[in-house]
């Protein structure tokens, strides 16, 4: 069966420390103010009746990726495990993908092309976890293959209440937030 890479993000464990963000920057040698992941803190209610959710967000590596459809040069493409990648050589920097992505997962790299999360496939193909997963002090992030029912991500999604962001768009995102 074809692999389907996905990530879960445990909102209960996460403290929003940003290790994922900085670890990613270091691992992937990102330019100043270039980010492939980021942290969102959502607070609801009025003092003193408040609730809070913290999410580490990144590309959803959608199964129906709007960015790939929108890309006029074929730079945005679907790679192993359904991972959405950009071939920088083919990217003209036109930003059609940025307009198409509802998750704001992409940014313009200092070198002119569009950059985004790769699920650290360079690590994954060596059998290592993506950098954000590897560094996270709270172990809030889990990467794995949904086509394997025994994978940790599959088990988590069976056992835990979870959500994806903006499911109504029909893009079938693969970043799951455990509640």
């Amino acid at each position, binding site marked *: 069966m074809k692999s389907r890479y996905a990530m879960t993000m445990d909102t209960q464990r996460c*403290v929003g420390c940003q*290790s994922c963000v*900085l670890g990613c920057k*270091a691992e992937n040698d990102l330019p100043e103010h270039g980010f492939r992941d980021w942290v969102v803190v959502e607070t609801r209610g009025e*003092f003193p009746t408040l609730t809070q959710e*913290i999410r580490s967000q990144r590309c959803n590596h959608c199964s129906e990726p709007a960015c790939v459809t929108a890309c006029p040069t074929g730079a945005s*493409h679907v790679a192993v495990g359904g991972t959405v*990648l950009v071939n920088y050589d083919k990217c003209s920097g036109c930003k059609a993908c940025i307009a198409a992505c509802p998750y704001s997962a992409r940014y313009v790299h200092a070198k002119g092309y569009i950059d985004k999360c790769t699920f650290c*496939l*360079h690590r994954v193909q060596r059998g290592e976890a993506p950098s954000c997963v590897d560094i996270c002090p709270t172990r809030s992030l889990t990467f794995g293959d949904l086509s394997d029912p025994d994978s940790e991500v599959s088990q988590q999604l069976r056992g835990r209440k979870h959500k994806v962001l903006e499911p109504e768009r029909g893009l079938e995102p693969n970043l799951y937030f455990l509640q």
Partner: protein
Amino acid sequence: MAQITRRQFIQIGGASAGALAVGSGLATKWWGLDRDPIPDPETDGDKVVPTFCELCFWKCGVLAHVKNGRVTKLKGNPAHPLSRGRLCPRGTGGVAQLYDPDRLKQPLVRVNKRGEEVFEEVSWDKALDEVAGKLLAVREKYGPEALALFTHGYGGSWFSHLVKAYGTPNIGAPSYAQCRGPREVGYGMTFGQGLGSPESIDIENARCLVLIGSHLGENMHNTQVQEMATAIGHGCELVVVDPRFSTAAGKARYWLPIKPGTDIALLLAWTNVLISEGRYDAEYVTKYATGFDELKKHVADKTPEWAHPITGLKPELIRESGRFLASFRPATLIHPGRHVTWYGDDTQRARAMAILTALLGAWGRRGGYLLPSPLEIPKFPYTAYSYKPKAPVDRPASLYPLADETLASGLCDATIPGKSAYPIKSWFVYGTNLLQVLPDPRQTRQAIQELDFIVSVDIYPSEICGWSDVVLPECTYLERCDEVWSPAYKQPFVAVRQAAVEPMYESKPGWWIARELAQRLGLKDYFPWKDSVEYAEHRIKAAGLDCATLKSTGVILGKRVPTCEEEGAQLSFSTESQKIELFSKTLAAAGHDPLPKYTPVEEPPPGMFRLLFGRSPVHTFGRTVNNRFLSQIVDENELWLNTDIAADQALKSGDQVVLVNQDGVKSNPIKVKVTQRIRGDCVYMIHGYGHTAKGLRFARGRGASDSELCTRYKVDPIMGGTGMNVNFVRLERPESA
């Protein structure tokens, strides 16, 4: 950044990826003749050096990736019991500290007046001769005890050794009287031992974690945050007491938005609930504790109804949360906190927390406080110090006899003439920016003016360097080998710090600086080793451990001994009574309350707010504010202001305000963050901003300094800690330019 172009190295990466991807089911999609490559940033090192971090004092195990002589990235060392393979955000920022363009690069000798930051770059020989000459002159004129060493950070051990050989007892770390000191004394008075660092608390097995003003999660003590997440994963409940809806409060079953300064009243009310409703561990208390009857009597009238008007918390909330936390005993962990110098009654608050811990039976029990042990590493066989020093000068004879470390603030006080038993005429400052660390920086500057000589060893041109006569540039932790580290911890271990790369510029490791000074001070015999590696190897071999193993792994674990009753540990208490002292005769004998009492705190005057400060997960005090990598997340501090108050003052998020404190001291402009997450009687900011040093080209002028606004502090009568949450500010619009 790599010098080859991105496109070139994608090609290289693509080629190697192809070789490695065999059998991985790699989807191949062809666009004409080009196959889409999997981008590889190639940041893995050609060598990986295990060491430990110095971005904060937690000292996590780090793997430094080094490629072509440059550190590319830092990862957590999986073998190290503190990092467990993970790093906090600051840990990843060590590379940017190493390559910070604003680092001190050359020894400096002051040219203009102190504080004007005008220096001449000189050779090491000239700088060291100058320092040694001045230190010898001070010893000649006033005696060796006229020198005070202020130290923070793990490189400080060489200088402590140096000044002890020189003959002074006056060695102070602000991490005591400005940070965790009251906790050490409060728990020490109760259980016979303090907590040290890292604290041996069993967060991961706690079933209920109670945070009293501790903002773990924003305060990124890596291991503790890891354990908190693990505990939450196991269903651990949180009870958080904080005037601010902290990150941890967002995960809590109960958030108690307490009125600042009234924690003792809440703790006594909880104690009342536990005792009056019989929810405490009677068997444990009978077996191990003394003074229960006095405690029972003391809290009999400290009901939740009594605490209600003091704390602003509803009696039902106090009662319900008290019952709740008691229901998980003994695995209810009242976290001891770390930076606890708040209101001057801090030792008593720590006592109240320790007493509650005892009632829950959580000391020496799984999910509570564990009994730590070190991996014993024999000390280096130094020649005994020849000077018999006088008593430290940090406190007047009759005051603070229960303090168990030297007070850095006391050394500063003693420098101002007429306040001490003998004069302090010279300061040696290692790795601590005293102008941000000690309360009332006006007084610190006044003390500095009284000195014959002041020298700083630092990696950054911080404010204290600007007030120094000589500044010696130390290399960063990634460029040096330091003292070996084997703290008392639930998992005994020994770790080494190893240089990943050679020192940059003219910077030198601390051991070299100390040894060179020793030679010039006639103290050569106290440094009988070639370098710190030889020194470390001597100690490791003396412990019967293998140096090669330690070098390759960065850490060796010791045998774990029983840490709690469940593991077969026998509890013992080195208090006077050999029991847990709920009622403290020691405190009574010293003229203090033997049981913690609530004493009212001064209220903010109308139109003013209590100034509270804390931590960001991406920064350590002011030490990382110049770090351009970490600052991509947080590059200035904001003033948290309650939404309703902001509406009253017609302020919205992003507006700039100037803070004016009760003494008329004004801050730099700071942006307002309007939020529901804080009470209306206080404001909050991250500590460490508002740098003024010219050399900190990135940090300078960013955000506001809480330190400059802390012109008032309340001294803890038991141990001399400086409570700093006693300053009030009003908000003004900045004068338009």
